[in-house]
């Protein structure tokens, strides 16, 4: 029964990893661009949430809205004034610029919030659970996280395949050179993609804040989890990303069941093994 419980918890944890991964997947899908600071932005959102709720005593619902607005705006502006300048055939500049951003963010958070780990108290969400049997219980927070992941990915899917904006994003992903000849402004479209990805990053950060302790150096690990979920699922497949997150989550909880020390290692090893067996992921698209 402990194993069944580990799998159930792993699936739910996969929801959080899918939230980490969706933004990364979206940005790569539209711009062929990987943001090394992706995890650090998630952690920044988490800090913002904690600062608003525990620091400034803002109502949590208001804080959520504020965090999401802040992240989305910052994503748009960052893409427009900084990242668009380094997009191109040469992959080094975007990697380096976001690598530099990652180091700046981590140290700025350290400067502002110190190295102490933080957590957002989530009250009954944290403690309440649905007891299925004496060994298996589903916590409200993990359940909400998983539901949010499904909703976010479903929402992105809807935007991508049912709206003019999504059509333009897919066209830009196919052939950015030709899009301006159809009246599309690449700089704006890329910034919209990043804004959308940053909105998801905001959601992920808020859940991270409630789910675990985090500190200024927590970003890179989140980037790696996000990356692994994207690759396991298959590049460009949003639902694949959810499956990728679940595979990673289950690998980690099963690893932790064997030995608490190998939780993260087990996730990485399963990722590498899948990379050997299915280099294009479980649901390859591109």
């Amino acid at each position, binding site marked *: 029964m402990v194993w069944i419980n580990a799998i159930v918890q792993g699936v739910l944890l996969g929801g959080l990893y899918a939230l980490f991964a969706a933004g990364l997947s979206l940005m790569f899908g539209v711009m062929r661009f990987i943001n090394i600071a992706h995890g650090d932005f998630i952690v920044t959102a988490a800090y913002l949430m904690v600062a608003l709720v525990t620091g400034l005593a803002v109502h949590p619902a208001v804080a959520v809205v504020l965090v999401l607005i802040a992240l989305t705006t910052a994503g748009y502006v960052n893409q427009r004034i900084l990242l668009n300048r380094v997009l191109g055939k040469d992959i080094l500049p975007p990697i380096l610029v976001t690598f530099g951003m990652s180091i700046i963010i981590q140290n700025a958070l350290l400067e502002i919030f110190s190295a102490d780990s933080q957590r957002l108290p989530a009250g009954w969400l944290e403690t309440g659970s649905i007891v299925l049997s004496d060994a298996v219980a589903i916590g409200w927070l993990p359940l909400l996280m998983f539901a949010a992941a499904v909703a976010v990915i479903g929402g992105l899917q809807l935007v991508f395949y049912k709206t003019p904006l999504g059509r333009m994003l897919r066209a830009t992903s*196919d052939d950015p050179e030709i*899009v*301006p*000849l159809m*009246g599309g402004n690449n700089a704006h479209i890329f910034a919209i993609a990043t804004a959308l990805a940053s909105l998801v990053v905001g959601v992920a950060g808020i859940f991270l804040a409630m789910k675990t302790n985090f500190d200024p150096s927590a970003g890179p690990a989140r980037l790696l989890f996000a990356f692994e979920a994207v690759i396991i699922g298959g590049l460009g497949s949003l639902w694949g990303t959810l499956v990728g997150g679940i595979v990673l989550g289950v690998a980690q909880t099963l690893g932790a069941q064997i030995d608490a020390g190998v939780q993260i290692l087990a996730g990485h090893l399963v990722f590498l093994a899948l990379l050997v067996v299915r280099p294009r992921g479980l649901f390859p698209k591109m």
Partner: protein
Amino acid sequence: MTRLLETQGLTAFYGDFQALFGIDVSVDEGECVALIGSNGAGKSTFLRAITGMIPARGQDVMFAGQHIAGWAADRIHKAGMAMVPEGRRLFPSLSVEENLLIGAAGKRPGPWSLDAVYELFPDLVAKRHNPGTALSGGQQQMVAIGRALMSNPQLLLCDEISLGLAPKVIKDIYTAVPKIRAGGTAILVVEQDVGQALAVADRVYCFMEGRVTLTGTPATLTRAQIAAAYFGTTEEAH
């Protein structure tokens, strides 16, 4: 007739390589003009320069009464210039209808709509939900033309639309030209097929090595003149 497009002394470079040496081309409203010339003569470069795909800052390009040199490509598109790019360049992950709708993103008003495009190219109706790239070459070309028309352009640029297509298919596609002109749209076609260009155009420019070597109406140009301007065989072309 009113001038729609006019370039004076247009030059273009790819790095250190000069591709255009002072091109003077004009298109009147509602007119159909053809650019002919061999591979590498600079025809496509000319289209890239006027659409904003390669920088033309500080040059003399007038379109619909505005100085458009140096404008971004999307802004030029919104001013009413639409392009059917060489090689069609349909968006592979979009359906036929979505490809067409991308063309309408600029929301310019005018006669062209999904229904109007389907009426022009009835073959596309049955394929509207197929991926654009799952069509035959001729049908893909129709989508590319339809996509450009969806923006209700004042000037439609067609880059090598007959390239790689069977003669029968080329004929089908060119039957659309009068219908497009009937809506008031001027057309600038780039063609390697001289016969086709002379048949469809009001006026012809012949390009060679980045320069205009001959211009005139199909009726006044002789075969020898065109051959000379095309291949540079004799001096008397001018």
